[in-house]
């Protein structure tokens, strides 16, 4: 019995962390957030580490690791607020293609960093206002909003019926525009489909669900990492910053804020591990567990993001310490792929609690 990371997983995490510490420091995040550079160099490095190949079976040219491994990477990316197309290109799209047996040819290109796939699932989770897509006669029409990755080469699009389609960004009738959000470490876009040729990936809602669950667990892991960073920064700051001739961390008020963050965040680590493990090994539990990981981390993340900022005092509010990149990333993870209320209702429905 071992509830935790294997030595291989620890090594993987260390490797990713070391790479990000060196190649994606705050200064680089700032540049990408300001659109001075794109996330290409970071992604290239992650590709070299094999990250987009992680979930692709070995016989398809991948590394053949599991969802927990991916969650560990997601945590590291969150910890570093790393701009990268990980969620779509390394997790959700590969899973969809593998599960459905479609577009397998793309997997190799994705694994090698030559092809990025964005995700347009919002309309299948809870369509906002007039957004939504319809498929007929081989073509997709409509609009998807807050789709992931502005630089994707193609998009995996879910309709309200939870059917999945694949669309190339170069296709006729396809257009997109950047939807700026508070979180500049990732990009979202509006996709407009004016009778765009689309290839069916899956009409099985089970595939959609599996891909969505994985995405949600990755987001939970990303929030875990981002919140852990915020907590670490707050603790460090509390140990250094002096007011009233004492380091502020010696004041019970500040100490307890840190303790409350740790107390609520620490069990989240285990929850994320479990949810990651469940995706591959516990089909009966994995859906509910993914919902809980997503929703619970959204709530704890919001609390930690706020509290860590407060511990930093005015500095936390400034751009100087850069903590806001994490604050906003946590905020984005909360809303994308289903806000907590919606996800909790789904957890209840999955347990037969909704009449």
């Amino acid at each position, binding site marked *: 019995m071992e509830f935790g990371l294997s030595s291989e997983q620890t090594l993987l995490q260390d490797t990713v962390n070391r790479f990000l510490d060196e190649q994606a420091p705050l200064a680089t995040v700032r540049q990408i957030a300001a659109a001075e550079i794109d996330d290409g160099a970071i992604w290239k490095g992650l590709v070299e580490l094999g990250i987009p190949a992680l979930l692709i079976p070995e016989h398809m040219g991948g590394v053949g690791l599991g969802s927990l491994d991916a969650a560990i990477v997601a945590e590291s990316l969150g910890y570093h607020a790393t701009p990268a197309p990980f969620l779509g290109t390394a997790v959700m799209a590969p899973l969809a293609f593998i599960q459905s047996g479609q577009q397998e040819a793309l997997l190799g290109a994705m694994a090698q960093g030559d092809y990025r796939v964005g995700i347009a699932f919002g309309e299948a989770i809870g369509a906002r206002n007039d957004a939504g897509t319809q498929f007929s006669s081989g073509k997709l029409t409509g609009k998807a909003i*807050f789709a992931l990755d502005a630089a994707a080469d193609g998009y995996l699009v879910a309709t309200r019926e939870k059917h999945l389609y694949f669309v190339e960004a170069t296709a006729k009738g396809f257009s997109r525009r950047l939807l700026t959000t508070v979180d500049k470490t990732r990009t979202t876009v509006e996709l407009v489909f004016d009778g765009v040729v689309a290839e069916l990936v899956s009409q099985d809602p089970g595939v959609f669900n599996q891909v969505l669950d994985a995405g949600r667990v990755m987001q939970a892991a990303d929030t875990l990492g981002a919140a852990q960073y915020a907590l670490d920064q707050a603790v460090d700051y509390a140990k250094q910053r002096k007011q009233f001739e004492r380091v502020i961390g010696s004041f019970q008020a500040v100490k307890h804020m840190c303790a409350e963050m740790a107390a609520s965040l620490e069990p989240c680590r285990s929850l994320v591990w479990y949810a990651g493990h469940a995706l591959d090994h516990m089909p009966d539990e994995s859906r509910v567990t993914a919902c809980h990981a997503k929703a619970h981390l959204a709530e704890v993340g919001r609390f930690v993001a706020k509290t860590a900022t407060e511990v930093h005092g*005015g500095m936390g*509010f*400034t751009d100087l310490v850069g903590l806001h990149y994490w604050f906003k990333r946590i905020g984005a993870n909360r809303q994308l792929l289903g*806000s907590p209320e919606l996800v909790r209702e789904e957890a209840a429905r999955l347990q037969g609690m909704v009449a």
Partner: protein
Amino acid sequence: MDLSYGSEYSDFREEVRGFIAAHQEKSPSQASMRGAEGLAWQKLLLDNGYHSRTVPKAYGGFGAEPDILKSRIISEEFSAAQLSTGLGGQGISMLTPVLLEMGTEGQKLQFIKPTIMGEMIWCQGYSEPGAGSDLASLTTKAELDGGDWVINGQKIWTSTAQLADWIFCLVRTEPDAPKHQGISFLLFSMDTPGIEIRPLVDMTGDANFNEVFFTDVRVPKDQIVGRRGQGWQVANAILGHERGSLAPPDAAENRLKGIIKLMETETIDGHRVMDSPVFRDRLMKLQGQVLAMRCNDMRLLSARINKGQDARLAGMIVKLQGTELRHELEGFAIDVLGEIGLAYEDNPYLRGNGSWQYQYMYFLGLIIGGGTSQIQKNIIGERGLDLPREPKVAKA
């Protein structure tokens, strides 16, 4: 319990309404408050006693007796008509009351009129990188050299520093005195050589504040308010003015109305968000809290009019509760909007001009600024509930 302002105030309300009817087309937009149009409007308000109403005529004001209800009526009527109530800013809201109370006759004559006319814009030099919650530990020093103070050091959180003509500034003049007794309150022009301003970008993406650096800044000796070493008392008089005004409940009420509208118009899978009982329950919780703060505010207003009514504690909790509530309200709106709640800046799906996200962050700043929530709780505990202060720490 009498929620009306009494018949004696009906005339005054009519007078205000008459003014509004006659002049409302002259009210400037927010953007042009400092332009010619804005300054003309400001003068009109001053001449009619709708701004700086109680400031003596000698200093450019209207010279009226203080009357809180009249002030409230003015703000109610202007707000109902959506008119500008004139210029604000730290010179008007913070420095003017201090000069009236502690300035010399010369200072009053020199500074108040141009300040309230909008001709002299001020910024506040108060906090320092090393002096936040513990403001009294500030180290920007001013040393006398002949007839001048020579100032060296750094300030932070200085809003409107780029706009400001002058600064009111706390500096350490008696380095050997106990920390609260070694501070002085100086006034000087922002054109004085040796001042450098660096905008301080914050999490909203704007630079709502600045850092200000002083290198051998020379200020005439008499540009001091109060005596040498008395600056802390002067500063505290100002802080009192600031704390009450950070989170008026009418703003929270307007935001709540905005959220209700959002919930009625935004849809998820074709259903209005308002039709979600979970969101509705959160809305009602917040509405209850906003109502409680509105009632608390009415009590505070009443206590200012009716001597003998004790609302000390009710006043002390406003900053803490008001800023936390606003942050929560804005965060709730983001949840109502879901992904759309993330929209910012040029995003075409922006709702309310992006104000939900902006205010969500800005109010986190206000939770911290002007006395963090932790400092507020100390104050409530010690001054409000008479709990003992933190004991002195033994020397290591």
